[in-house]
């Protein structure tokens, strides 16, 4: 890893609670695989994007630290337990603090991180203070996706303006979500010099996905 290259840090926050077990978690694993393979075909993504995976069920865990695309290995993911969304947000804030480089006199900082959250339920822990901190400090551009009938979009709306909803947890919809994530990463790495505070540009969401107003 170079000390001088400006990286585009990308964090995937994946819900691995009990309700994701079975087909949904398998679809998520396939999705991560497809995402990596897609990004590895893009020279710009290969030179800039770094990927980390944080999973949350009864606890939150960074299963892959921020890693160069060429070295990224798909993490072992399994589903079971509750939905410690607040713990995941706190962990995300810690990871960004520790892993993302800010600009200094002698170093060009990383690009502003991109965070994709996928959840199918409602938090089972205290999430509000972690969400408030993220919203106040705005250390990343956060895109949240509520998957299936039981996902709580109002919680996600507390965290970010950018909330998507997919109506069911089908393998097809999850695959589409990851395809969209990869297009978003590619598009972001192209519009990296967007103005401060300006909304990042994302591709239109896949069919069947609704932008939560």
């Amino acid at each position, binding site marked *: 890893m170079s000390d001088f290259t400006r990286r585009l840090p990308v964090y995937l926050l994946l819900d691995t609670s009990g309700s994701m077990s079975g087909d949904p978690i398998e679809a998520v694993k396939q999705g991560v695989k497809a995402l990596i393979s897609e990004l590895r075909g893009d*020279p710009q993504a290969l030179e800039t994007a770094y990927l980390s995976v944080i999973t949350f069920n009864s606890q939150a865990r960074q299963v892959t630290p921020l890693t160069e695309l060429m070295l990224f290995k798909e993490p072992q993911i399994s589903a079971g337990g509750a939905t410690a969304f607040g713990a995941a947000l706190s962990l995300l804030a810690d990871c960004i603090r520790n892993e993302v480089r800010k*600009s200094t006199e002698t170093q060009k900082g990383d690009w502003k991180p991109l965070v994709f959250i996928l959840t199918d339920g409602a938090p089972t822990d205290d999430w509000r203070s972690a969400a408030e901190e993220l919203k106040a400090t705005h250390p990343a551009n956060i895109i949240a996706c509520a998957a299936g009938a039981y996902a709580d979009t109002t919680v996600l709306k507390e965290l970010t303006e950018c909330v998507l909803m997919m109506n069911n947890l089908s393998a097809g919809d999850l695959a589409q979500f990851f395809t969209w994530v990869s297009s978003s990463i590619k598009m972001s790495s192209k519009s990296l010099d967007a*103005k401060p505070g300006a909304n990042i540009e994302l591709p239109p969401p896949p069919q069947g996905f609704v932008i939560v107003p």
Partner: protein
Amino acid sequence: MSDNTENNVPLTDGEVTAHTASMWRYTPVPEAPEPFPEYKELCEKYSDYSVTAARVRGKKHKHDGSNCDDWFEAAEIGGWIVAAVSDGAGSKRFSRIGAKAACTSFVNEVRDNFLAAGQTDGLSEKLSLSLDSPDFISACTKLTEIMQTAFIHASEAVEREFENRKGNPEFTSDGEMKLSDFACTLVTCSVIPLDNGEQLSIAIQAGDGMVCSVSTDEPYGSALTLLGIPDSGDFSGETEFLTSAKMHTPAAVQSRTKLRRSKRSAVMLMSDGVADDYFPNSPKMLNLYLDLMMNGIIPKPSGKPSTEIIPDIQPNSWVNDKDVSYAIAYSEGTAEKSGISMEKLWDMKAYLPDPPESEGSLSGLSGNPAEKLCRWLDVYLKRGSFDDRTLMVILPEKAGDANG
């Protein structure tokens, strides 16, 4: 892919760029709307300075088949040089149009007003007076005001380009057009040779990029003066633009103005596509200067190459035609290979190796330095560097010469 992927050893930048080299596509500039040329070069010798400049379309634009968003302009008025470089915001559709309008408007207005001021006021003599002389100060103030006014007018010129295209279906077919679609930076400098053998440099910068002066007879620690003040936020890429509302007040332009009276020295202006590759700009603008000398783009002081210096030469492929590669010399790699510091390499610049002469080197191009500069900008390799690249080098021609 490298074996390193198996055991999580971090990859070197060279390993990553070697892997991506063949993946970068070449797609021509799109035909509409308002296509801009792929390349732009300038090579002029005037009485006191030579101006060499080139602009190349970045790899990401070549890959996607989009336009180059950089522009530059330069003019000479009785030995005085006026220069501007602009970088259109990468994600904005018509920023190239803004960039060209900003440079053209600025350079034309300053040229006209310098011409008028120079003829009427005998400014040249006053500018050579001692730094605390009222006549010197008033002459400086006059020139600075001309540039600052032109700088604000450049922003208005960008707005006019936007207004002129309103309602034109060629520009609105993809959706509503906004002023921010024309957003661009502006890096400017006037270089004025003085009767006493010195020079006055006046620079104004909005947004990223860089303008600096280089005194080659000074040591590494003091040879460089940054004349630009780039705006930057916490994270990379958080830049301001000429068109930002807060740029339009005289106070804002004043705070972005720098004056310097010095010995005759080289002045370089560039877009962030080059400046970011030499970060931190102080002192790495000097590494850029060494790279230009090592690749035969600007002359090095005469001296016999030293065997102590082992050049780092990399074959870098050309995105436009991947069967073609050029032997490019790198100063930082050279210092590393030779086991010497950049300070030492700078001191030894008269003894640098001659530019690569082998087949497929820049030396094979015509003698025109702008052509060499253009190709060098097009092929030198750095990981994560795929933006448009523009560089203008203003070199003293006479006694007191930086290249002595």
